């Protein structure tokens, strides 16, 4: 065993990570699709109607996973951006950029589904309460990160600027998470806590956790796909592999994997 060591540093180089990412994508994408189907099946056909909210509560199966993913992906994005900045690691910075759009997408989804859930249960599409306002700020942080990077031509400078914004914005994540405890808010408290017994019926909980797993796997697959695009674009623009004809051929082989 000890003589079969994997050289992990090899995969820190974008060109080496590129084919590995390509091989990994179906291993996350296919289970994600299966789990989405399973989660929706349990959520709509097995989980019973809620005695207080009727069928409106079924929005939870997409709302809560989307909200969690919005927060998780932000933390990941900020960490990758920070590592890319601190250790001058191009691949980590590219990963942060790849994560930002999916994170923004899930945050938007949590706000949109929350709004559609709020109308029938609270009687309003939107209130400026702590949880919703801090989640809206999260969306603005994502949008700020994406537009800041898009506005700077030099990719490494864009990475650094994005990292500063992402790390400063990290303070918002615990604010979102604890907002329902710190402030008196319309939003309900956490349904799932690590140490307490969940207060949900088992099939409801199962559907929600399966949807969460599906969202995780989906995020990994889609972020790896985007990362591959970013690697191709950036390495190409940097002229690292396109200076000579031979290298070009190698590059188009890489891109066809």
């Amino acid at each position, binding site marked *: 065993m000890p003589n079969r060591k994997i050289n992990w540093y090899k995969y820190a180089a974008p060109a080496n990570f590129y084919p590995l990412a390509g091989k990994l994508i179906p291993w996350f994408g296919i289970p994600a699709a299966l789990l989405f189907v399973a989660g929706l099946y349990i959520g709509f056909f097995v989980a019973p109607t809620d005695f207080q909210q009727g069928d*409106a509560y079924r*929005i939870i199966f997409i709302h809560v996973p989307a909200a969690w993913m919005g927060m998780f992906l932000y933390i990941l994005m900020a960490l990758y951006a920070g590592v890319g900045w601190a250790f001058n690691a191009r691949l980590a910075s590219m990963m942060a950029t790849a994560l930002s759009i999916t994170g923004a997408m899930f945050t938007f989804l949590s706000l949109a589904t929350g709004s559609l859930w709020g109308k029938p249960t609270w009687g309003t599409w939107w209130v400026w309460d702590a949880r919703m306002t801090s989640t809206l700020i999260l969306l603005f942080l994502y949008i700020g990160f994406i537009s800041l990077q898009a506005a700077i031509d030099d990719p490494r400078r864009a990475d650094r600027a994005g990292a500063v914004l992402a790390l400063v914005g990290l303070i918002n994540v615990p604010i979102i998470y604890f907002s329902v405890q710190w402030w008196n808010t319309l939003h309900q408290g956490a349904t799932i806590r690590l140490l307490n017994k969940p207060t949900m019926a088992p099939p409801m909980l199962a559907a929600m956790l399966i949807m969460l797993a599906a969202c995780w796997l989906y995020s990994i697959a*889609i972020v790896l796909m985007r990362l591959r695009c970013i690697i*191709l674009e950036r390495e*190409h623009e940097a002229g690292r592999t*396109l200076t000579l004809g031979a290298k*070009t051929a190698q*590059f188009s082989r890489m891109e066809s994997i």
Partner: protein
Amino acid sequence: MSWSEFFHMGGYAFYVWGSYGIALVVIGGEVLALRQRRKGLQARLNNISESAESEQS
């Protein structure tokens, strides 16, 4: 439970199906947009490698 009852969602059809509809559009849109990006990129890189080869010969 009949299918029409199922789609009615106890009167919350607009909110429930609206939520899942948005989710489908957003997630499907992300996948399609990324496919387009990859295709565009592939076409551009193929052009470049062809012109580089013709320059060499």
